């Protein structure tokens, strides 16, 4: 079976309400191999979280209109019934969220919440599930794990809560782990601990991981590949080194230039003028054109095709030379 772990083609997500239709995701296509980690970078409203949720069918069902192909571990996510999804979630794909306090149930102990997930997916007794819960807490390096099994979420610090949530997400050995800004709410010294833990677990358990973040540093620390999202599209995708050192798309260049990093004191920060487009209408042409310093007439009539000057690194911009097609 040569199918990649994740196979997404031309995914569109629209949110329909009485007042307006928001075109949150407008044609996203990508594959993720097993054991690979992809980081989706973007600013608020770019559609990165919606894309992630579409992989697990977590967008609100009544208001969401999906089209395209989404296959995860061989399952068709768009066609799957809610009952089928309940089987897929946890065992094939699971997710960790930004804010552990709202993702965990406040009235059950950590041990109970992990055991519940194990018992739902694997035919084991409560005792065996609780033993597994203890193993998981040790796996995510929670100190005095045995005592913490009986703890309620509010009794744990932010870092421990995030570790407990990771333990729940990993409890059924998923093939794919989705992480929506998992370290944004954490302090600097705790953030790096969680990032290193996730990187180690990914390697040990052989999972595919998709990270959503707005923080370039997080991407630099954990990703194999990076995709930059803008107005519901992947505007650039490539290996982490290539993309961080040599971004092709003017938006990706602007984002890297606008990020303050060490040793920039005294320099003026490059900024991207203007604001992202309103997604109540699908933008014609390149959505970044109104803010782009290199805008030309050919940017406006249609969305630029993806061009790839080096294998594996592609951007949707008319300025990018297309070495692949010239060579052919």
């Amino acid at each position, binding site marked *: 079976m040569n199918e990649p772990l994740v196979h997404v083609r031309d995914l569109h997500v629209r949110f329909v309400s009485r007042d307006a239709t928001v075109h949150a995701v407008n044609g996203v296509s990508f594959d993720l191999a097993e054991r690979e980690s992809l980081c989706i970078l973007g*600013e*608020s409203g770019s559609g990165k979280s919606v894309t992630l949720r579409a992989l697990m069918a977590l967008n609100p069902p009544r208001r969401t209109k999906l089209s395209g192909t989404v296959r995860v571990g061989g399952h068709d996510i768009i066609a799957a019934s809610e009952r089928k999804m309940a089987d897929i979630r946890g065992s094939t794909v699971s997710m960790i969220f930004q804010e552990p306090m709202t993702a965990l149930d406040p009235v059950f102990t950590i041990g109970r919440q992990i055991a519940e997930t194990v018992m739902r997916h694997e035919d084991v007794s409560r005792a065996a599930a609780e033993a597994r819960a203890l193993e998981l807490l040790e796996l995510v390096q929670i*100190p005095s794990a045995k005592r913490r099994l009986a703890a309620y979420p509010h009794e744990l*610090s*932010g*870092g*421990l809560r995030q570790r407990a949530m990771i333990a729940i997400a990993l409890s059924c050995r998923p093939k794919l782990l989705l992480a929506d800004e998992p370290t944004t709410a954490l*302090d*600097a*010294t*705790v*953030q*790096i*601990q969680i*990032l*290193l833990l996730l990187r180690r677990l990914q390697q040990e358990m052989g999972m595919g991981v998709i990270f959503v973040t*707005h*923080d*370039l*540093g*997080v991407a*630099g*620390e954990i*990703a194999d590949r990076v995709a930059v999202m803008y107005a519901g599209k992947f505007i650039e995708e490539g290996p*982490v*080194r290539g993309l*961080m050192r040599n971004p092709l798309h003017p938006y990706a260049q*602007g*984002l890297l*230039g*606008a*990020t*303050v*990093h*060490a*040793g*920039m*004191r005294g320099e*003026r*920060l*490059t*900024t*991207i003028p203007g*604001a992202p487009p309103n997604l109540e209408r699908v933008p014609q042409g390149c959505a970044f054109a109104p803010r782009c310093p290199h805008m030309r007439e050919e940017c406006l009539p249609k969305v630029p095709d993806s061009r790839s000057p080096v294998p594996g690194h592609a951007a949707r911009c008319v300025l990018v030379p297309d070495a692949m097609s010239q060579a052919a």
Partner: protein
Amino acid sequence: MTEAAATLEPLPDIGGPAQPLLTVRGLTKHFPLKSGFFGRGAGVVQAVDSLDFEVRKGETLGIVGESGCGKSTTSRLVMALMQPTAGEVVFDGRAVGGRELPLKEYRRQVQMVFQDSYASLNPRLTIEESIAFSPEVHGLARHDARARARDLLAAVGLNPDGFARRYPHELSGGQRQRVNIARALALRPRLVILDEPVSALDKSVEAQVLNLLQDLKAEFGLTYIFISHDLNVVQYMSDRVLVMYLGKVAEVGPVEAIYAAAAHPYTAALLASRPSMDPDLRRTEPPLTGDPPNPINPPAGCRFHTRCGFAEPLCSATVPPLHAAPAGQQAACLMVVPESGHSRAPKVAA
């Protein structure tokens, strides 16, 4: 005084450039805990504990630290938004809240910008009314206050004709933060406290606001206290940096000294925790383990000793004083205090 109030011009410098604009001495804030419904024992949260620092005229002092370290409590104490348990704040040589410098006059000279740009604007006032509000309170005629509001909107890069009559919910986060900055400048303050002003903004907007803050500082001759948890942003903005840990100063000094040669192990760990932008320089070991301890019962002695790699028995018994470190900063660590008894302390030649 009356003339200054009528036109609201910037107030004059009193002590000259050598006198610090703001001096904080022994500032302490303890929040008592009630033994309440859940039957917990009463205690106190030592949010800020005998803090000493000064802000020089024309500089930007960056304050960094993790959540719960007392950064925001410090800013609220300096603003006189809450009563300190002990200690005093001196502004340009005059004690705040005393007869020489009543609160109303002090607050004209010190203004604040908060992290949450939406919660800090009155939703029922237009942008222009919000900015003109405090100059009117301080005696500026309504017409002049409105004119000043429009000038300030232009100064923060918002077209007055397009924005003056709008309400906060009609603006994006970056635009609202510009309005908050304009409002803070409306009284021509000398000190502006920026409490995480860009933390809620996207990166491209963050850069715009940081550039704007630098421009306004030069244009209006301002002094900033810049509070942030983002070490790169603090390095970019600040002349001097104050590192806080559990309500105490861990290290304070020039930004170059602290970022090049941190003297306190906590500062070093904090700096090493920044994710690297370069995939070839990925970290392999976290610089610190565990979370910051609870400020309700902070560790005795040096508050950092429970997480410190260099801790010795002495550290849990002695509260380290701030002491000059080699690179030019001051650090509260026994490893920089000569003859402190710590095995890594500098030895004084006889």
